[in-house]
């Protein structure tokens, strides 16, 4: 049976993979079951909660709504790709410090949504943060610590930018 499934090429967190999967298999399941990247979570399976959020070709998507076929050739970023060389990403550091994660189940998706937001808008104001995270439900935090985390991460990358600027001179 599996022999007749198409082979799908995807690059996840910089690593290329060939996956044989039914074309309508959800990207979420490809990540979790085929690639054993279980950081991406399922909360609703219907595009409402955002806990399955990943970046696909630079866009924020709910991986529970993306069929494997559609991910053919795509570049995917998941929570597992955030930390580099054992060093937490500034967003992860900020979530840790500011209490942005409680039960943690929304966190991988929230981090990806926050990363996506900062990629387009490095210094969002509170209204922009609220809007950017509106597709990601968190039942634990009441969102305040998450907003604070994003603000802190933005400030930190601002420090890092200045640092790079200073180094360049």
């Amino acid at each position, binding site marked *: 049976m599996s022999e007749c499934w198409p082979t799908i090429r995807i690059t996840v967190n910089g690593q290329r993979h060939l996956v044989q999967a039914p074309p309508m298999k959800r990207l979420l399941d490809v990540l*979790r079951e085929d690639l054993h*990247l*279980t*950081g*991406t*979570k*399922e*909360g*609703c*399976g*219907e595009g*409402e*909660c955002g*806990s399955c959020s990943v970046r696909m070709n630079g866009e924020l998507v709910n991986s529970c709504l993306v069929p494997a076929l559609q991910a053919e050739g795509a570049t995917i970023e*998941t*929570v*597992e790709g*955030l*930390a580099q060389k054992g060093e*937490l990403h500034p967003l*992860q550091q900020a*979530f*840790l*410090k*500011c*209490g942005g*994660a*409680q*039960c*943690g*189940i*929304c*966190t*991988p998706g929230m*981090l990806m949504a926050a990363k996506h937001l900062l990629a387009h808008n490095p210094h969002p104001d509170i209204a922009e*943060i*609220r*809007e950017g*995270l*509106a597709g*990601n*439900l*968190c*039942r*634990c*935090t*009441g*969102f*305040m*610590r*998450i*907003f604070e985390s994003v603000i802190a991460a933005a400030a930190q990358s601002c420090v890092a930018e200045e640092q790079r600027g200073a180094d360049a001179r």
Partner: protein
Amino acid sequence: MNTSETTRIVGASVARKEGVDKLLGRARYVDDIEREGMWHGATVRSSIPRGFIRSIGFDRRIDWSQFSVVSASDIPGDNHIQLIVADQPCLADGMVNHREEAILLLAHPDKHKLREAVEAVHIEYEPLPAVFSIEESERQDPIVWGTDNVFKTFLLEKGDVDSAWADAAHIVEGEYRTGAQEHLYIENNGVIAEYSAETGVTVWGSLQCPFYVHKSLLAVFDLPAEKVRVIQTETGGAFGGKEDYPSLLAAHAALLAMKSGHPVKMIYDRMEDLAATTKRHPSRVRHRTALDNEGKLLAMDIEIATDGGAYSTLSSTVLSRATLHSPGPYVCPNVRIRSRSWATNTVPYGAFRGFGAPQTIFAVERHMDEIAAKLGIDPAELRRRNFLHDGDTTATEQVMREPVILDQLLDRALAESNYHAKRAQFTGENPTSAVKRGMGIAAFYHGSGFTGSGERYLNSLAGVDVTPEGEVRVLVSSTEFGQGTNTVLTQIAAEAIGLDYCDVIMAPADTGIVPNSGPTVASRTAMVVGRLIERAGLQLVALLREHAGLGEHFTRAEFFAASERYRAAKGEAVSLCRYQPPPGIFWDDQKYRGEAYPAFAWSVQVAQVAVDTVTCSAEVEEFWAVQEAGRVINPVLATGQIEGGIAQGIGYALYEKVLLQNGQMINNQMTNYIMPTAEDVPPIHAHFVEIPFQHGGYGAKGIGELPHDGPAPAILNAIRDATGVSFHSIPLLPEDLFAALAARQAIEEPAAV
């Protein structure tokens, strides 16, 4: 304990213990775990609310030989879930009492085969008449549970209520209703179970209370304690929703594991979780209150009814807490509370953050504003005139022996929110604006720990040990599900022993490893279990000093060297402590009199709400919460608890409606059961006033449930302030607002005829 002594780690916002794992996406939730040869399980559920099962047929288009099928007749032990009364079957046997009741279980190696198979089981029923509301159950025709449809009743009496009415200057009556609320933890219920004849049953799961599940499995499988092992996996939210339900789900998966000979994973999808698992009890509360000329309470006559659903589960203890929180934080010489929990043919209601208190606090705090309006007194002032103080007695005649600082909390909340100035400003603006603003208050307590003699019955055991690998472990069955158990308990242990935070870890929440420190419920963990860990830590150091030559002052290396010596001599380096009730605690379970709770946490909340009279939407614009919950062990985590609880309370008030049709939830999706999002939650300002409680872990009291108690009444009080319209039930959705505002407009501006 000396709580005034300065602490190094307690009181510091150290990072969440398991935080890095969660942030890296490597924390292992149950669905992230695979077992060798694992199958998947699914549940065939009742499609009627009540009736006899006449036949079960299996569609021939399915090759059933590939499935394991479990029915009630496969249960080796008692077909009941062990909670307070063992009335809920593990699998329906001949009769169903609610929609979605589990009848059959199926397992297959391929989870994608299960949905079709579930649909290919055909069950024929002989329906029986059913009841779906408190009022229908009260008619006691038909009787759907026991002899009278009543799960539990309480009568609490103080003074003489009946003699108070004659001399009262004012009598105010009101009826208040609250709807069901879904926990909506983002991780649905799920477990994995294994079975073998030699080792018995092992369950991994998303759950709050490993020993509750353990107890239930012992009965279902008729096994000795050592043959059942329950291990909590990382848990993606619970809020009470994983207090009792996992006992049922674990039994289901374990039965399938036994029948199939394979590990079986059962993970509910969102629709199944919403349709089949517990929710907050709906309630109806009636108040009749006598007051003197000054607005002082003379008598409170309170009648409480809750809808418990089809089986008793935790309804009696939820009702108990509802009863004990119903008079609010006020002094009143004459109080009578009559409460009942009623059976209906809906999915059993269960534990949810606050455990009955949000329901009755909604009623009393809404009622206080009705009284204030009737008497023409400012709502803040009316409360102040009736607040409990040190030395006063509650409705159960519990004397307030610890400081009660409600006046201070109220003053702070009014100042932080700029309450009076804003009210004046809105009163000026509202008449000419389509958007009407208002301010609303709620004042309340939440009893920390189990009610009455509960903690004594639990008799919790907890401690610390030192492993050969040089780690200090906290030994508790208290679980982490976001609220901060891991962090707070390791902080306390590190503080007590004199080590660093990073030297202490949590032992796995595995009934095969840790002692029973009681369930992780009732805002008891930091206070009760925290105190046990504090004592156990101090005791460990004393043991090492006495038996292993540990000096008065010691380095980390000296501590671990002494632990090694101690282990070499005694076999293990462990220190356990058992619960000791604070002295002078008395509780009469019959009369419901005495020390209802070992301690109370106190709070005053203020909501600023804007009601758009054109769109009929109510929006909370800002929220303030001032609380005294003893010593704050970790300010960032504590603040997160307050904010998260308030967000849930806002949802309870304005967003979250469980739509039931013949006992079935029909909006069982996240698309139509709506919770507040990042765009809906207002700025929340949380402030703590700390008074260490001498019998809590480093002075802590309970914090987790407190914040959920106040938002609903504070918000509806603010809507009354804004619009002049009193609302008596929640959830209050735009259509409800529309109906009421339109009706009022019709009175104010009679149509020209």
